[in-house]
């Protein structure tokens, strides 16, 4: 039983930011939640899926973010409250739909929850979803702590329903994945009945058809909604000010930076010198509220991550208000006080603030810095690597070897998943391009058409099973239809492994654990006319032969490499082989091997015993996949099937 539905109203519980958002949605009586897995957002749907049964929710992992928005919007159109969480670039994926939804309006409360990842801790971009709120012209809310994550989410549904507009609630990694105390409110006793009214007056928002046309009328309506949103924002209890009445300087912040600002003020003991204006309603900014605080002093320091979003919006208002309140100095990213890229942290903010206040601040004492430098040199160098026994290591081993042997400068267009690491040595640096979900096959489709211009390199793309359904399909169709020459290697590990084994259309289980029909990747590929081969990546030889064969074929080829992820709940802790290095056969560093297993293959289960000059298996880490047995040039690695 989950604390999310069992916790008592009025009591406080330690919740992860994402759980707080989920609880907020439950307190708001959410009915439908749809999304696509992506760090740092995934736990919102995961925690709701666990309570779906006893709260009569419908929760799904959709094929991709755009579809999840459409699914959630349908619920809203039918009068239900719906939520749609995603990682930052998920908004880009669905932005075409959102652009139209912003105009068409919504009925039941519809909340979009993008979780941004400043510093790209688990992303390959630092996308900024706040910019989308401005672009789409929809209200944006940013919780500044865990309690607010719950409260603001709950309020967002009411706001959305009042405005007939979707509302953005933006989180960031350090809020979504950190934990804090949250006081629970009541769970409503709701039993909503869904129904879609569509035969009223055509322009009636609640009963007519739902569309963005006529555009000028709907756009006008949207601006009226924004005006109403601003009115609500002027009095929102989620915008707070803490500090003296006449501060030297006001820090303006939102989201996780709220924590850093509070810490900075505390560390510098500057509570009586500076004020902290923490904004939750960051777009559109409420002008009266802003004018009140801009009038309190002359210097402002905006603390926010990624782009100077609030800084710019504040500057626009300050310029407009200048005739009344005078010229203000607004500092932040544009003047270089804070970095334009990467995450902020208490040190960065404290140092910057100290500078502005003329104070000395050293994040660490000198001897600490000295000591840590010494220790760091002794710490083992750890690089990003696939897990022990990861099927991707075996797959990329073969892909690399085949492309090198083929000797025509063939290359891989990479994609998004754990196998993104194949740009690094752990994947033998096989992938040479890397962009959005599904882009590997799209880019490959383009490369595969360049024969006409003399390009004769083999073109491969890789794609995970979840990514296949999410966004590689249109690219694959494109390649087939336009007669591109590519080989797509489908790394099928039976789950959305990177984000924690969420389901996808290729699997038999849905988000709530229910049985659902699985779609066969192989059948889909064959039906569109691609040549398909299937192999187990752990069988190095047959995978190599299959790939060599496909490289000779023109047109679109698909090699499905099927092997369940090592960490999958199904496989965990089951060793297939007992693996051992026979020291007497191990060539080690000498000519004939040169430490292939621990220098190149580098499964963490293999260790190099320097004293003995031999490789060894670390039994604790080895998961017994047995692949190293097939790569050792001297058959020194013995594997015995575990009964």
């Amino acid at each position, binding site marked *: 039983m989950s604390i999310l539905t069992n916790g008592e109203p009025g009591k406080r519980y330690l919740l992860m930011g994402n759980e707080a958002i989920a609880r907020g949605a439950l307190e708001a009586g959410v009915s439908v939640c749809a999304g696509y897995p992506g760090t740092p957002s995934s736990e919102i749907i995961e925690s709701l899926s666990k309570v779906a049964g006893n709260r009569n929710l419908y929760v799904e992992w959709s094929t991709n973010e755009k579809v999840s928005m459409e699914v959630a919007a349908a619920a809203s159109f039918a009068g239900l409250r719906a939520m749609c969480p995603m990682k930052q670039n998920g908004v880009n994926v669905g932005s075409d739909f959102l652009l139209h939804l912003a105009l068409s309006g919504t009925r039941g409360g519809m909340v979009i929850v993008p979780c941004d990842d400043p510093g790209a801790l688990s992303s390959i971009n630092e996308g900024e979803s706040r910019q989308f709120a401005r672009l789409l012209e929809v209200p944006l809310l940013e919780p500044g702590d865990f309690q607010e994550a719950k409260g603001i989410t709950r309020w967002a549904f009411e706001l959305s329903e009042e405005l007939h507009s979707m509302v953005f609630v933006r989180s960031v990694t350090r809020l979504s994945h950190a934990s804090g105390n949250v006081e629970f409110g009541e769970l409503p006793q709701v039993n909503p009945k869904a129904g879609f009214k569509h035969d009223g007056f055509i322009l009636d928002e609640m009963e007519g058809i739902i569309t963005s046309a006529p555009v000028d009328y709907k756009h006008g309506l949207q601006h009226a909604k924004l005006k109403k949103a601003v009115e609500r924002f002027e009095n929102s209890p989620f915008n707070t000010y803490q500090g003296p009445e006449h501060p030297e300087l006001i820090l303006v912040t939102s989201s996780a930076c709220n924590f850093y600002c509070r810490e900075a003020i505390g560390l510098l003991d500057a509570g009586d010198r500076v004020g902290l204006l923490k904004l939750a309603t960051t777009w559109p900014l409420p002008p009266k509220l802003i004018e009140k605080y801009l009038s309190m002093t002359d210097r402002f320091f905006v603390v926010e991550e990624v782009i100077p979003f609030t800084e710019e919006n504040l500057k626009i208002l300050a310029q407009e208000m200048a005739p009344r309140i005078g010229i203000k100095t607004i500092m932040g990213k544009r003047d270089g006080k804070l970095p334009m890229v990467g995450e902020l942290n208490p040190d960065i903010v404290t140092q910057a603030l100290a500078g502005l206040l003329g104070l000395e601040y050293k994040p660490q004492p000198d001897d600490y810095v000295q000591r840590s430098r010494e220790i760091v040199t002794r710490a083992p160098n750890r690089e990003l690597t696939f897990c022990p026994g990861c099927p991707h290591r075996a797959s990329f081993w073969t892909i690399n*070897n085949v492309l090198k042997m083929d*000797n025509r400068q063939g290359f891989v267009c990479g994609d998004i998943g754990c196998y993104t690491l194949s740009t690094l040595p752990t994947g033998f640096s096989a992938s040479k391009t890397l962009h959005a979900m599904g882009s590997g096959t799209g880019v490959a489709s383009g490369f595969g058409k360049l024969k006409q211009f003399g390009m004769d390199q083999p073109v491969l793309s890789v794609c995970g099973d979840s990514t296949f359904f999410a966004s590689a399909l249109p690219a694959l169709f494109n390649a087939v239809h336009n007669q591109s020459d590519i080989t797509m290697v489908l790394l099928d590990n039976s789950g959305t492994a990177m984000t924690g084994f969420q389901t996808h259309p290729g699997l038999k289980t849905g988000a709530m654990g229910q049985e659902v029909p699985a779609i066969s990747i192989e059948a889909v590929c064959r039906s569109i006319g691609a040549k398909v081969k299937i192999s187990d990546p752990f069988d190095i030889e047959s995978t190599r032969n299959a790939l060599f064969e496909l490289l000779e074929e023109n047109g679109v080829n698909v090699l499905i490499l099927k092997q369940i992820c090592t960490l999958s709940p199904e496989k965990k802790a089951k060793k297939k082989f007992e693996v051992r290095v026979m020291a007497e056969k191990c060539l080690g560093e*000498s*000519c*004939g091997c*040169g430490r292939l297993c621990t220098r*190149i293959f580098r499964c963490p289960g293999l260790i190099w015993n320097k004293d003995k000059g031999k490789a060894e298996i670390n039994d604790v880490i080895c998961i017994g996949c047995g692949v190293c047995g097939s790569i050792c040039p001297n058959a020194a690695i013995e594997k015995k099937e575990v009964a």
Partner: protein
Amino acid sequence: MQVYGSKELVEDVLNKDLCIGCGACVDLCPYFKTYKGKTAMIFPCTVQQGRCHAYCPKTESDLTELSMSLFGKPYDGSPMGHHEKILIARAGDKVHPAPFQAGGAVSALVTFAMKNGMVDAAVLTGRTGLIPYAELVTESESVARFTTSKYMAAPTLSAFNQGVKQGFQKIGVVGTPCQMTALAQMSINPLHTENFKDSVALKIGLFCTWALDTRKLAAYLSSRLDITGIKAMDIPPPPAEILVLDMGGKTIEIPLSEIRPLVPRTCLLCPDMTSEWADVSVGVLEGEPKFNTLIIRTRTGQDLVDKAVAQGFLTIREMPAVNLDHLSAAASNKKKRALAGAMEEGLLNTAENGKRAMMRIEKAVVERILA
């Protein structure tokens, strides 16, 4: 001969397009592999002095050192190298008739050497479609599967390396002059390994003016015909100037002028036409397509030929002087062409500031060859 590692092999040979794909560096270790006539390094290796570099016929081949070690005398640059006898030969009655390239002397000698226990395995070169492949055979009956010349660079020596790994100690090898050079370099224990054992028991060298680039030839031919239908190929001695393809029933002739651009540049820098480091060397015979030219170079070679003749596996006769003159002229032309080219490219006797050479030959000998 100075030995380096895989890094130098890649820099000096693979990257300079000097690799002939002989297979000497292949399958010694996990790093060098052959596929469709091309050798590739799959991962870099950190060993400073490796067998790959030591065996490669295109790195630091010190001909004086080889000659001293194999024949006990310095390399003198004579057109057909050190030899005891030059004869005409063909397979004897004891050999099952098969579609030999010429007289079948090669297949006859290999078969005999296997039967009489002189070798316990033989490294031969076959063909799937057009692509040559190497195989280690252990039954004399298998020799007939490998008759006829594949006029392409072949990774023959990879099968030799596999044979050594499998523990064979008396291996016979049939190969081109570059492959014989590699075997010679293996046999002088270039890395000064303790308890060194030379696993080559017999070197049967083929004559070779040049080979063709496998991939280029495949591309050239497949745009004109079905390459899976090629039964045999032949380049008859001058003045024919054609490549003849036996398509089973009909033959196709392709002028050599069309084919020459497919010769890898490394062949034009190769000084050896008659497999000078072999025990016996075999070529075609001018004017008599069903006979071979046979050169006996070593005691091992002489012994083999004597016994094969005695037991009916080989027949031999004297070589007329006019044939010898032609052979000598052709061999000497190849040497001249190679040395001039190598000199021009700075690959011969390169010494200053630690530069590495492809070939080392004493200065006086170079002058004599080019004279």
